[in-house]
């Protein structure tokens, strides 16, 4: 019954080509020797070499990396706690508000999240800079982490935890010895995704940044508004490469995690 018709195949190919062609074109153009973006002047890596001399760009990239590492780590910790709270604590008081605050940032336009965060920092008169961007990114990313880890915790065999507790382990010991190893791949994957989200974000960073904390997307945005340039093609291609590697690694880890979860369940039922 499930058959792939010619129409299905065409839809699939067109869909995937539509998604990937613009990215491929961008990467190909980044190797264009010609200064004129529209004219093909042969292959060259000169634009990548030119990036090494662009000091403001390099410092922006360094700031972005630091923000991404710190905020991804904080978001993973907070998001994992939130996921545990949502799946293992039943219906505690204020759960509805809690769940709402997890889901709302996922769909809230970034302009609003950014604006409100900035107004908070102004109201409590905090100097904006590196740490305010980190807080902004942590808040946005922790919700993604919570949703990913939560989905892992939901299809997780609770009897494994119950067995540990029956044998006298405290909830904290159970979490560390049983739950954590099983959800670790999901946690690692979330960290990488949070890292990618932070590295990519323009809007929240623009609102929450201050002097001396220009991130890479802010820098790229100010250049890109003026038009297309070969240097920007090269920077964007590099970012695609970094994020691509992180995301593929993350998804392989999740798959590994799912496989390991099944294995554990089989072992548990075998005993």
């Amino acid at each position, binding site marked *: 019954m499930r058959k792939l018709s010619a129409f299905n195949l065409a839809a699939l190919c067109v869909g995937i080509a539509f998604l990937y062609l613009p990215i491929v074109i961008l990467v190909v153009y980044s190797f264009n020797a010609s200064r004129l973006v529209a004219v093909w002047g042969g292959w060259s890596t000169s634009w990548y070499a030119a990036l090494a001399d662009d000091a403001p760009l390099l410092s922006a990239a360094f700031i972005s990396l630091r923000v991404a590492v710190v905020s991804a780590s904080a978001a993973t910790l907070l998001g994992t706690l939130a996921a545990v709270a949502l799946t293992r604590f039943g219906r505690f008081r204020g759960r509805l508000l809690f769940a709402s605050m997890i889901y709302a940032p996922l769909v809230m336009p970034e302009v609003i999240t950014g604006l409100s965060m900035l107004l908070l920092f102004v109201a409590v008169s905090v100097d904006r800079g590196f740490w305010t961007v980190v807080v902004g990114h942590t808040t946005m990313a922790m919700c993604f982490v919570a949703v990913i880890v939560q989905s892992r915790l939901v299809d997780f065999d609770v009897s494994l935890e119950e067995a540990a507790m029956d044998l006298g382990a405290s909830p904290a010991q159970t979490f560390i010895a049983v739950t954590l190893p099983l959800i670790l791949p999901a946690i690692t994957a979330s960290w990488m995704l949070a890292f990618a989200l932070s590295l*990519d974000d323009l809007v929240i960073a623009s609102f929450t940044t201050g002097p001396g904390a220009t991130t890479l997307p802010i820098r790229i945005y100010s250049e890109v508004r003026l038009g297309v340039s070969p240097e920007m093609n090269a920077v964007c291609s590099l970012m695609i490469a970094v994020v691509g590697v992180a995301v593929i690694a993350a998804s392989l880890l999740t798959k590994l995690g799912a496989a390991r979860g099944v294995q554990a369940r089989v072992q548990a039922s075998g005993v």
Partner: protein
Amino acid sequence: MKSNGRSFLAGLVVGIPYAWLVAFFLAPFLIVLKISLSQTAMAQPPYVPVLDLAAGWHGIARFFAGLSLDNYVFLGSDPLYVLSYVKSIEIAAFSTLLLLVISYPVSYAMTRVPRRLQPALVLLIILPFWTSLLIRIYAWMNILQHDGPLNRLLLAFDLVREPPVWLSTNTAVYIGMVYSYLPFMVLPLYATLEKLDETLLEAAADLGCPRWKTFWLVTLPLSVPGVVAGALLCFIPLVGEFVIPDLLGGSRTAMIGQAIWTEFFANKDWPTAAAVAVVLVCLLVTPIVIFQHQTMRTAEGDS
């Protein structure tokens, strides 16, 4: 003593993320609400009234007396903002419709592929989403520019006489929006279609129902939850989208996200920016509540 320690630990697990979200998501929101009721001032912070707790009750009373709805009255009376809201909703709605029409055949085809290949396809669809929106839109600026690949392709095949202008048009905005939000539409649709009970289709076929009619009477109605989820996931953020209309659209496609940005960064009119944001949130609250209701129901259905 031991159980005290346990509940303390449990309290931390809930309390830490809870406190973080209250401090950095809920509180900022209340502040936006407050500032939207304030007036611009040549001061730091650039609005009045400022809550002066040191002045005690008197200060609090003065603070509340200083609040006013003037900004909202201003928004309602200025056709520029009203038009901007209408335009944003219109563009987001039409983009969502386009996304639905384009994504449905793709999602449907994904369910027809051999099962072991499907996870790879899902990954292939998600992957572009993780590269920066800014970069993906920039890639389209490359393609759509005056002497870019698209126009040269059209000229080479003699499809046009004069290279058409793409950038700074609504068409470019629609292309950018459909491109950027495609995964958000394809994945919920795929998730619903994938769960569809095959035997229903077989039953319809056995009873002599033509394929198109089976699709219309069985597949489509059963995929409504996926359609709703996908439409909401796209529509809500699209209304407030900033990067896409800013880089691909012209000055005529002034969406509300751009209005907030300009009021804030160019005009430094914080109270107006806050009021624009509050009205936008109010417009989006209904779909967000529907979305939440849906996610909670699916989450509970799965567990």
